């Protein structure tokens, strides 16, 4: 058996396979299908200061080899998460990470601070793709200075592992990655969804209530691999790779491109057991290629 264990800052993962925020609920939804303790980690739904209803229906459209979503951060809010959800999931034998979202720096800090108090959450993933309501709705993650500022403020209140999730909807993702590294991030994860749009020509209407939405699934994978490779070469902190992963070979592309761990998103909808199949596939691959430690192939490209 090859060693699959990897590390993201202080977090030890039993294998590099985690789940992507917003595609795996709170993990419980998948308990009928897989043994959750076989995962390297679970990143729960984007969590904000208050409960949010998200965008109006319809907020999903299938596109070639992918899908658009405009869920819009529907979630129970950090208070309910800590009181009701956390006690239900805290003893799952894996790393539970909270995806922290917000519309202002204060909101990000407040959520991060409350999550900091949860013993069995070793880290957060800061979702800086959200629009900043105070700055005219511009995404925090699309401007290096703004991204650095939010990371710096959260860093002051959050002591454990701080992963910053980057949006691909920028001219240079490397610039953003360097800015958040400088500001104190322990790791970066990428990519979030790509801004896209689809039109129902029969009804002559946009498919989504919000007109535009986030593209995910197999179609985004080559872009994600490219970005992970670029960022892994530009920063010292560990990179978590995601975007379109649906099998072990996909995960291996990200690892070889320099990711220390991967996340699986949309593929969970097609096969709720896909994550453990990827774990098994990584083990098979290592055996076939006589690799003793998965870390030996990380970043070989």
């Amino acid at each position, binding site marked *: 058996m090859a060693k699959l264990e990897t590390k993201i800052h202080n977090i030890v993962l039993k294998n590099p396979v985690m789940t992507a925020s917003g595609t795996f609920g709170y993990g419980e939804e998948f308990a009928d299908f897989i043994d959750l303790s076989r995962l390297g980690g679970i990143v729960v739904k984007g969590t904000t200061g208050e409960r949010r209803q998200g965008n109006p229906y319809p907020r999903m459209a*299938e596109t*070639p080899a992918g899908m658009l*979503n405009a869920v819009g951060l529907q979630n129970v809010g950090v208070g309910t998460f800590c009181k009701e959800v956390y006690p239900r999931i805290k003893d799952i034998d894996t790393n539970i990470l909270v995806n922290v979202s917000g519309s202002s720096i204060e909101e990000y800090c407040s959520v991060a601070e409350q999550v900091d108090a949860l013993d069995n959450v070793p880290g957060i993933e800061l979702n800086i793709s959200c629009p900043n309501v105070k700055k005219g709705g511009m995404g925090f993650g699309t401007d290096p200075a703004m991204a650095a500022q939010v990371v710096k403020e959260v860093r002051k209140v959050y002591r454990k592992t701080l992963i910053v999730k980057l949006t691909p909807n920028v001219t240079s993702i490397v610039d953003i990655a360097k800015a958040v590294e400088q500001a104190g991030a322990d790791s970066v994860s990428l990519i979030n969804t790509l801004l896209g749009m689809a039109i129902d020509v029969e009804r002559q209407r946009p498919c989504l209530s919000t007109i535009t939405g986030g593209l995910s699934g197999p179609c985004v994978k080559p872009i994600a691999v490219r970005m992970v490779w670029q960022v892994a070469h530009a920063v010292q902190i560990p990179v978590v790779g995601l975007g379109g992963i649906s099998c072990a070979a996909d995960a291996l592309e990200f690892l070889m491109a320099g990711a220390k761990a991967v996340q699986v998103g949309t593929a969970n909808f*097609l096969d709720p057991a896909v994550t453990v199949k990827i774990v098994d596939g990584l083990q098979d691959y290592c055996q076939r290629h006589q690799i003793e430690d998965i870390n030996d192939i990380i970043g070989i490209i």
Partner: protein
Amino acid sequence: MKQIADFTIVGREQLGEQYFSLTLRHPDQLPAIEAGQFVEVEVSDCREVLLRRPISIHDVDEEQNTLKLLVQIVGKGTRKLSELKVGESLNLIFPLGHGFSVRGERPLLVGGGAGIAPLFHLAKSYSRKGVEPTILLGGRTKALIPVRDAFEQYGRVFYATEDGSLGEKGLVTQHPAFAGRYDHICTCGPTPMMKAVGRYAMEKGVECEVSLENMMACGIGACLCCVCDTDDGHKCVCKEGPVFDVRKLTKWLAATK
């Protein structure tokens, strides 16, 4: 408990141009299935289809260990499913969602189009409780009401077609049987039909359950794509539905879309 399984297709029937049914045998033992629950079907080897498709459980045969799906061909995924042959296999996630409560002594079941699919297992469930439901099925034409006679073993069946080719001419809500005295109404079909039925039930103070067919990505409550704007906020149709009590849907009933 939800599961993923490869079923074997043991029967296929074409029902007019637009509909077909598939009878699927479970590899082991089927779990208990409520009327109104659904499956998420994998559409394999289809370049244009990524996501699974939600389809209601039309009938369950515990002895044969089979379940039946009734599918209307409306697009690429359902067309691909229509090409499946007996002997091939089909991967399903099931049983999903919450079904009908099967309450009432004088129930009315109102179905339109593909919405009649879950009403068959529902009629059977009532019949097993010793209750004979009134069943009112509608469609634009006779050919668009794919299952007819089979319902008659479980209840009194009436039809409404817009062209008058079967039963009364008009909409189900205009059918004389619709105005009868019932203590519970269940409906599944096109949204305007379900809203008309739901509004009528609210007005008359009759309990009413509707089965919604929102677009879904995961079917298991993980993605939050399939929400309905209920009076308690956005609820996932796949997990908290697809069957809802209309008293929780006053906002939805009032919305024109």
